[in-house]
């Protein structure tokens, strides 16, 4: 039983040649149709299908076409070519609290939002009590929502959406909203729906979520499907794909040095892109020096999905700098116990003059690694630790700090 089918779907956006304000007057439209209009194909001949009860993940870099698929599935826009077949009721959990009007009460907004999402009035009435309980806003349900805290707003919005009973559920980064307790609720509800046999389509950057939720995954790039398979297979393909590519960041003057390669290795010395939390890994950065630098420093940055820096490896940690002679050189970093939590991390690298912030070379997103964990560890990072059961009278043990990593 096929629930969802994309048949040779293509989507084209017409982009104006020169910068023009949207929805300009009739006259300027006539003028511009003579000028250059470029076509941008967000999707090119995409076909896939989803069986009943299956959960499909769609991953890919920004601009790959994921949000276009989202818009097409939720019927917000129409394809330029091809057809989309949807068998059953599709609900999209894209934005929580859509349609909320600040002047209306929580109850009135529940009716409004619920009907926008496709529920019948009678359905909303019968589920009203449960919606209020799930959101935990019973005391405030008859107060205008402009008085709600942002937490209440999001909880009510999600509660309404959680009570949708769709045949097909479409999800995107909505799971990233709200506090931790709320996110747990979201995840739990989605797992429940999945167990009840709801077909799931999940579009996200959060690879660990995709892995835990999806049986099958599609990899998108520049509007086409370039990979399809199990979550593990496709995520592997995604991270391996991001091999080193050099993009000169500092233009203008000739660079003093140039980063040529960044690669990671496992403890056997083989090239790898997948590592475990708490496990060992090594990185080697090769660079070419054009003009000698007397005091240099090399750093590797591990970047989160959202672009923030998770952590950094740097040669300036030990206090000494590198004397960079002309020619091909390299730096090797190694770590015994990786502190990063599971996820995909993009790697930035830079070379700078020690002691100053003067950058010699900087490569953004030169490669990426995938971190996994066989143990479920909570929190933002892993800290190596040991434990024991001391007797009553014993003093606190002194922890031994390995010499190499002393700051």
């Amino acid at each position: 039983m096929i629930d969802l089918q994309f048949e040779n779907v293509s989507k084209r956006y017409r982009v104006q040649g020169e910068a023009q304000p949207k929805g300009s007057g009739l006259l300027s439209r006539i003028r511009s149709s003579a000028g250059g209009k470029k076509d941008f194909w967000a999707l090119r001949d995409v076909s896939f299908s989803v069986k009943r009860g299956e959960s499909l993940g769609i991953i890919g870099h920004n601009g790959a076409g994921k949000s276009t698929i989202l818009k097409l599935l939720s019927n917000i826009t129409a394809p330029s070519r091809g057809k989309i077949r949807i068998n059953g009721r599709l609900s999209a959990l894209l934005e929580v609290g859509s349609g909320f009007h600040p002047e209306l009460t929580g109850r009135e907004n529940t009716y409004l939002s619920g009907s926008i999402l496709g529920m019948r009035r009678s359905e909303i009435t019968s589920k009203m009590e449960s919606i209020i309980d799930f959101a935990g806003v019973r005391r405030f349900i008859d107060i205008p929502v402009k008085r709600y805290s942002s937490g209440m707003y999001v909880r009510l919005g999600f509660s309404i959406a959680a009570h949708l009973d769709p045949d097909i559920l479409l999800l995107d980064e909505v799971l990233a909203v709200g506090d931790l307790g709320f996110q747990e609720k979201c995840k739990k509800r989605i797992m429940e729906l999945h167990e009840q046999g709801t077909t799931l389509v999940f579009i996200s950057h959060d690879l660990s979520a995709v892995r835990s939720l999806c049986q099958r995954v599609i990899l998108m790039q520049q509007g086409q499907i370039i990979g399809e398979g199990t979550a593990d297979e496709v995520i592997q393909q995604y991270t391996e794909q991001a091999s080193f590519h050099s993009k000169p960041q500092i233009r203008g003057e000739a660079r003093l040095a140039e980063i040529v390669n960044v690669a990671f290795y496992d403890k056997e010395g083989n090239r790898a892109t997948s590592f475990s939390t708490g496990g060992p890994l090594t990185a080697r950065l090769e660079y070419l020096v054009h003009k000698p630098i007397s005091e240099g420093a090399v750093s590797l940055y591990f970047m989160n999905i959202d672009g923030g820096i998770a952590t950094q490896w740097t040669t300036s940690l030990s206090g000494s700098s590198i004397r960079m002679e002309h020619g091909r050189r390299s730096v090797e970093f190694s770590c015994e116990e990786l502190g990063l939590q599971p996820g995909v991390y993009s790697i930035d690298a830079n070379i700078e003059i020690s002691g100053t912030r003067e950058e010699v070379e900087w490569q953004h997103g030169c490669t990426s690694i995938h971190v996994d964990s066989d143990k479920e560890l909570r929190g933002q990072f892993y800290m190596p630790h040991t434990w024991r059961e001391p007797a009553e009278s014993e003093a606190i043990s002194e922890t031994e700090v390995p010499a190499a990593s002393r700051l």
Partner: protein
Amino acid sequence: MQLEQEISTYPQAAEKATPRKVKVISPPSFSPSLLFSGLVELFWYRDLFYTLSIHRIKVRYKQSALGFSWAIVQPISLMLIYTIIFSIFTRIPTGGTPYNLFVLSAILPWTFFQTAISSSASGLVSHTGLITKVYFPREILPLTYVVAALFDFLIAGVILGVMMAYYHVALTINVFYIIPILLVETMLAAGISLLLSSMQVKYRDIGIAMPLLLQLWMFGSPVVYSYSFVPHRFRWFYVLNPMTGIVENFRRVLIEGIGADLSLLGISAGIAVILLPVAYLYFKHREATMADII
């Protein structure tokens, strides 16, 4: 805080035994089947239409001191100013009816039309957030403004009734013509609002031109004067205005108590009946790509 609420204890939805409907999303086309599928979808979303209409009416007057009485203030103040100008400064013949009653009975249907069109023209553009995030038949948005205008019309009708009683104007059997007249007017307003709201998504200057257009249109309709006041040589052109048949007949059947001028009404009805499906088809055609350009 009941954060530990077990989700599985809430009511299970209706059994999955109900057959699933298949939806096919294809590139926008201009085929008449769009009309049919559009109406089917609209019926499916009737609850939303109802909810949004109620919401539109409520929000209009919420938090305002005068509330619903604004629906009365507008026609009354118009009536006063027109009476002063066209009955005191100068004299327009009304065939015996007191001028204030004469003009009020035309202001009502005109205000309904004017409010419906001017408020719905930007109905889509003012809901950009909704349109880019959630699917529902977009025509619901402009149509709720038409419903809200109708609601205002009914409230203002109370004032008209009071004035008629004051002037001892009796209702005759011809008052039942009001039903087809209102029907034609609603169809006309709906058609034009569908057309304008979808066009405004692409060409924003429609919203700017609206007040001027409606002003001119009003003077081109028998609101402050009667149809018989129009010189014969202009009549062939004058009757092409669909509002002529509506406003003139509304006044005739209500105030004068005589039957409707069927030829005039026929022209208005003909225009409305052709315009509405064409406007709807155009709307559905543009709807597909609205979210891309709004």
